[in-house]
């Protein structure tokens, strides 16, 4: 089961003081759906505002990226650049 960590404060508007979650999910989309079920509105926030690091590798707009069992998933603000 992937372990999800919300590293930034913007997530707390949805999750309160909870910053880590164990989520039964095989893909990023399944993870987002489950988190949205637990915290309504959080899913859209993740999709629009967050990048997702899966075992240290940052993904953006990767709804169907697989989440290996036991993987660490970190939600971080989307990254742009110059």
């Amino acid at each position, binding site marked *: 089961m992937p372990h999800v960590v919300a*590293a*930034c*404060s913007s997530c707390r508007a949805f999750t309160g003081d909870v910053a880590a979650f164990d989520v039964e999910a095989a893909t990023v989309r399944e993870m987002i759906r489950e988190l949205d079920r637990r915290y309504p509105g959080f899913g859209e926030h993740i999709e629009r505002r967050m990048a997702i*690091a899966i075992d240290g*590798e*940052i993904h953006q707009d990767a709804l169907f990226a697989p989440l290996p069992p036991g993987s660490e998933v970190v939600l971080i*603000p989307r990254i*742009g*650049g*110059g």
Partner: protein
Amino acid sequence: MSDVLERRDAAPLDDGHLKVVGTRPVRPDGADKVTGKAMYGADLAMPGMVVGKILRSPHAHARIVSIDTRKARALPGVKAIVTAADFPDLASEEFEAGESAGNLRDLSQNVMARHVVLYDGHAVAAVAATSSSIADEALALIVVDYEVLPHVTEVEAAMSPDAPVLHAHMFTQGLAVTPDKPSNIAKRNELTRGDLAAAFAEADVTVEGRYTTAAVHQGYIEPHACVASYAADGQCQVWSSSQGQFMIRTYCAKVLNLESSNIRVTPAEIGGGFGGKTTVYLEPVALALSRQCGHPVKMVMTRDEVFRASGPTSAGVMTVKLGAKADGTITAADVVLKFQAGAFEGSPVGAGSMTALACYDIPNFSIVGYDVVTNTPKVAAYRAPGAPISAFAVETAMDELAAKLGMDPLALREKNAVRDGMKASYGPVFKNIGYVETLEAIRSHPHYTAPLGPNQGRGLAVGFWFNIGGESTAAVNINEDGTAVVISGNPDIGGSRASMAMMAAEVLGLPVEKVRPIVADTASIGFSMLTGGSRTTFATGMAVTQASQKIVEDLKRRAAMLMDVSVDQVDWVDGVAVCRDASKGKADLSLAHIAEKSGQTGGPIGAQVSLNAQGAGPGFGVHLCDVEVDPETGHVTVLRYTAAQDVGKAIHPAYVEGQIQGGVAQGVGWALNEEYIFDRTGHMENAGFLDYRVPVASDLPMIDSILVEVANPRHPFGAKGVGEVPIVPPLAAVGNAVSAAIGKRLTDLPMAPPKIRAAIDAG
């Protein structure tokens, strides 16, 4: 001078025998640029074209009571006049375009002010006329009645409860309790780890300081420029200088409520962007003018307009407190970042927060960031947005900590350096990073132990940037003579055409001179995110490589047909199809031969790949700077500069060195001279290169670059983004050197002569 230090990790296509990647061929855009033939944004001329110009606010903050254009419209030669009334009044809406989300209302109202002007230079109206002089005359005939409002340009002043509020709808996000009053603080963000108070209580040594940086402009030499044509059937064409033709298309469609299919954007050659050309200022205005008059409209900003109305990056006010054990182990860090966003929210304080401590393994920290609106131009991205600002504060504090510990500044960085497997301050675990190797590269460089003379000082600083991937499309077509064309959708701001051609040539087995790279318009290639975030060589390079691999498979299939053997009997070796079974006596087939016969084997040879590249590897830089300060004048001479960087694999090392040298040059300017200066009315006083001083060649020494190659295994050749890391460390590297030279700690940028003289005089 440049060194390449290599630690080989697994990159899928790097077998240690690359023939093109890693070499230094002549750049494909070089001849046109040095002979003046390159077509920049202002170079296009069309039949019937008219000149567009913008009337800009003389006030930093004012309500627009009325705009009377009647006299201007009556002027002979005037073809069109637009104001906000000619643009859709868009609601606040987040939308995706390019790299990240933006707000449609803010974007539109930055392009053309509606009801209120929010900074000196804010666009109020625009004119199209048959000549530049008539356009100027028409602008002077437009009567705008303003009700001047109180303004605020400084970050901390804007955060004050009694500051003039720019946006009545803005309530600070990110607070535990939603405020009931509007504020100029758009957002508060926070990153925390561990028990900060306990860690500081147990620290043997602490340092604490307040640091400031000024707003600085990206300083691209080419001003914003475009030509736009709105045809009677609604078909629009835009030619413009930007970092993303698809970004221009999307923004124009959004701001003018048009369909993307009706807009074709052709990228011009770009004369510098550095992040500042990742948004629109002129293009929607030119289209609106063209729609009204039916003529193509050319618009070119003056340098004054570039400074006053296109994005600089944030001014910043930071505090940093560090706690450490006596052996140099840093146990606590408390960082507060206040970044100026300009007229609309969206400073890079989020990235500044995430990068502030990214080079260090610190168990207890708090990083709080504030995004603050002010009556100044809306900031735009500038190389590694936010990171240089927070790095200046943290790296200056690190220098102070090293001094207080009596420790070598490099040793302090080494002791606390992040490594593979450690958790970054912003959350994820690091993989395939080359930070320690980059520190080692500086330690072993002769510069590190070179003696210094009187009034000279040495400064060290480090920096980090994420780098990104994202959506890219690339096509590779084989010509009938066996040469190739590589087509991408990314404007070339840092050598991407060369690197695309090189990666294609490597896979195809062609000399790079046989591969022509071009950047196509939005109707001629699939979508690509803009060129930014140090993504193009990584992401678009991945698409080019995969397209080339597809072609190789196709070439092998066609060769098998021509040889009368099965495809599994054919190898592709250095651009030639070879039959594995020598006993069959099949002659090798060159790419040119197969191309010549393509009509007989299935038609033209080409492939296109669209992808969303993931797995971009972060980069680290370590910079060492020597300066000499004239104690009489306070003038700083940069004597020597060495920059080491973890670059993954340098596809074209000369371009990578150029990126590093360019980043250092810009950082030196940021550290020593550059700043937006506003008078009491909020008017920018130095909107020109005469008074806004960027470094020129004679201000700089040769900048030595050290390329540390720790491959990113997610890129076919191991590449990481390289364009942004180099501007992160220089502010503090220069600042620490100046402080060392005068024996006084300076904490405010720019470190211009008056500040240095004042510090010396203070005794």
